[in-house]
């Protein structure tokens, strides 16, 4: 059952073809295509025009906070919610109006939704029974899945007699038994305790790679999405905020929302001027002036929102600038005062105030509250966004 982590990593790097891969390989044909999908209920539009292409065997994570529409998108894909507009195609076939069982998709529910009156074997084999498969066929397929998922010897147990992790695997086995083209996972790990969750994560990835099943995984857990998915779809208020590989969305967030969602919670106002050579950051109360390379996202001269992660900060004791030298090439240096210091593990965490603003910064050594500090953020770790 347990696939070696290195094997998983290898499978992933083969799939992605290196870190800088944009993710969606143009050479691959789209397997699942979503066009202009809109859905909602009781007058509220939950999905506002979703366009997405997924290729065969890909693992997609739908990531977003609660209420962003990720579960509605999954339920619309599965056929449990009717879209108001748009279309869903699987291998070229329009499935938009088909019933949940006619789409070649199997859904793993957040609650697992196992049938409490049926044994493990009956739960796993029910889909095959519905398909009219012979008893011997069903038994052998169920046995095979039990082996693959580490459920050997549990066939006679009822769901109430299983641990959370085992239930989760039964739910997965039940969905996989019918050999779906697309596996839909609705936060399947959120009910597991933290330690089991890490194991099951890797088990799901390994299984999905081995079977080559296309998977759409809904989660609100950023790390889970990063670890599991080939590509991440970040949803915000019913629309796609960004689609890309984990590296893409982490290193090149397309909007302030994505940056914040991916951990760049520190937010400070800056003023910039764009020129042919690069970007000039004007000195203000918070920072020294600096010259930066022009980032990939569109920016206009004027006020911008600067975002960065606590880990991206290089914290040093405050040193007054000589005045002639700019704050730095390829980095911005902010000036602040330490307010709080704590140790959450790994590094010291500081809350630093900059005038009326405050940010969180990590450092390998601790700085005492009240100490004046410089916060150096390198250009590649600083995300700038012009106001919308």
């Amino acid at each position, binding site marked *: 059952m347990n696939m070696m982590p290195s094997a998983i990593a290898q499978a992933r790097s083969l799939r992605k073809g290196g870190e800088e891969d944009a993710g969606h390989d143009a050479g691959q044909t789209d397997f699942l295509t979503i066009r202009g999908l809109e859905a909602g209920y009781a007058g509220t539009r939950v999905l506002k025009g979703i366009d997405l292409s997924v290729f065969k065997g890909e693992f997609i994570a739908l990531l977003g906070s609660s209420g962003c529409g990720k579960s509605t998108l999954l339920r619309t894909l*599965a*056929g*449990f919610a009717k879209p108001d507009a748009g279309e869903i195609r699987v291998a070229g076939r329009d499935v938009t109006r088909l*019933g*949940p*069982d006619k789409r070649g*998709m*199997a*859904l793993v*529910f*957040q*609650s*697992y*939704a*196992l*049938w*409490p*009156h049926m044994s493990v074997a009956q739960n796993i084999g*029910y*889909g095959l029974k*519905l*398909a009219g498969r012979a008893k011997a066929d069903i038994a052998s397929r169920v046995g095979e899945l039990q082996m693959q998922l580490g459920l050997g010897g549990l066939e006679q147990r*009822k769901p*109430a007699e299983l641990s959370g992790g085992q239930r989760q695997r039964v739910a997965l086995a*039940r969905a996989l038994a*019918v050999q779906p083209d697309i596996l839909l996972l609705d936060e399947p790990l959120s009910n597991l305790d933290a330690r089991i969750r890490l194991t099951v994560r890797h088990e799901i990835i390994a299984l999905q790679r081995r079977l080559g099943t296309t998977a759409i995984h809904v989660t609100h857990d950023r790390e889970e999405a990063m670890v599991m998915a080939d590509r991440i779809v970040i949803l915000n208020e019913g629309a796609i905020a960004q689609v890309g590989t984990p590296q893409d969305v982490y290193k090149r967030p397309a909007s302030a929302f994505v940056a914040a969602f991916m951990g760049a919670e520190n937010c400070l106002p800056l003023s910039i001027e764009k020129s042919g050579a690069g970007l000039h950051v004007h000195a203000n109360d918070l920072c020294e002036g600096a010259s930066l390379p022009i980032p990939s996202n569109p920016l206009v001269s004027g006020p911008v929102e600067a975002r960065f992660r606590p880990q991206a900060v290089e914290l040093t004791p405050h040193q007054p600038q000589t005045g002639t030298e700019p704050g730095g090439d390829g980095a911005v240096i902010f000036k602040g005062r330490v307010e709080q210091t704590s140790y959450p593990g790994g590094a010291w965490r500081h809350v630093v105030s900059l005038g009326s603003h405050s940010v969180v910064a990590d450092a390998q050594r601790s700085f005492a509250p009240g100490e004046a500090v410089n916060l150096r953020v390198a250009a590649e770790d600083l995300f700038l966004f012009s106001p919308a």
Partner: protein
Amino acid sequence: MPPKAPRNFLGLVLIAPALAVVVLLFLIPLCEAVLGAFRTDAGFGLENVSKTYALYSRDIAFTFVIIALSALLIALISVLFSGYLTLGTNARAVALLRWLYRWPLFVPFIVVGQILRTFLAKNGLMNNLIVSTGAVSPMDTIGFLDWRGVVIAFVWKQVPFVTLLLAGAMASLDRGTIEAARNLGASRIRLLLEIVLPQVASTLMVALTLSVVTMMSVLSVPLMLNPHSPTMITVNMAFRINAYGDYGVANVLGLVSFAITGLVAWIYLRATLKENIR
């Protein structure tokens, strides 16, 4: 924290009124009825029992069959109704059924008897309607004022009650268990029989047990819809007491109905115990 003994005493005081009601209004009359069943002019004996057997064995069998048939029909119709309320896709039809089905709950048995007496009679509303469609001539109409009337009355009155409990239990199921089966291709009838019903089986058992007890104690319906022999034992009991002042045979009939409801309760308890052990 108060000392243990006074606290126990306070507990006893609190349950005393309820206990007194149970003892005075249930246990003592029950013992009295049991003893009365075996009390004869010549002391205690089985005379009342043999008399009851000679006079009313057909009625006892009739009662048993009517109750069993009614319970079966109630179960069947309630499962269909609550199943439709839970799985129905036509929102308007579901809303209409939800609004309609509860009405009989608020109609007393005696009114049900009265309504059905005029409705089911040979020249009643039902036959008039059938005749007006031209399907049957007035000469060929059949009155339903016999065992069928009793069954129809019981079913009409108890289906809403069982449906109410069953639909409530179905509504509180994890919706995912239904969707998971739909996702794998289960038809509506399979969803009901293989997924939903097994999960609410204990509620169905409770509702049916309560219905059987209710039907066993109804006097007005058999009296009004089936006044001839054979009839239900409630009618016999009333007749023994009112016409002859024969409490001995009435008490034996009472024990018989107690035995029938006891049997149902035993089946129910066995089922729930099994479930709890699991």
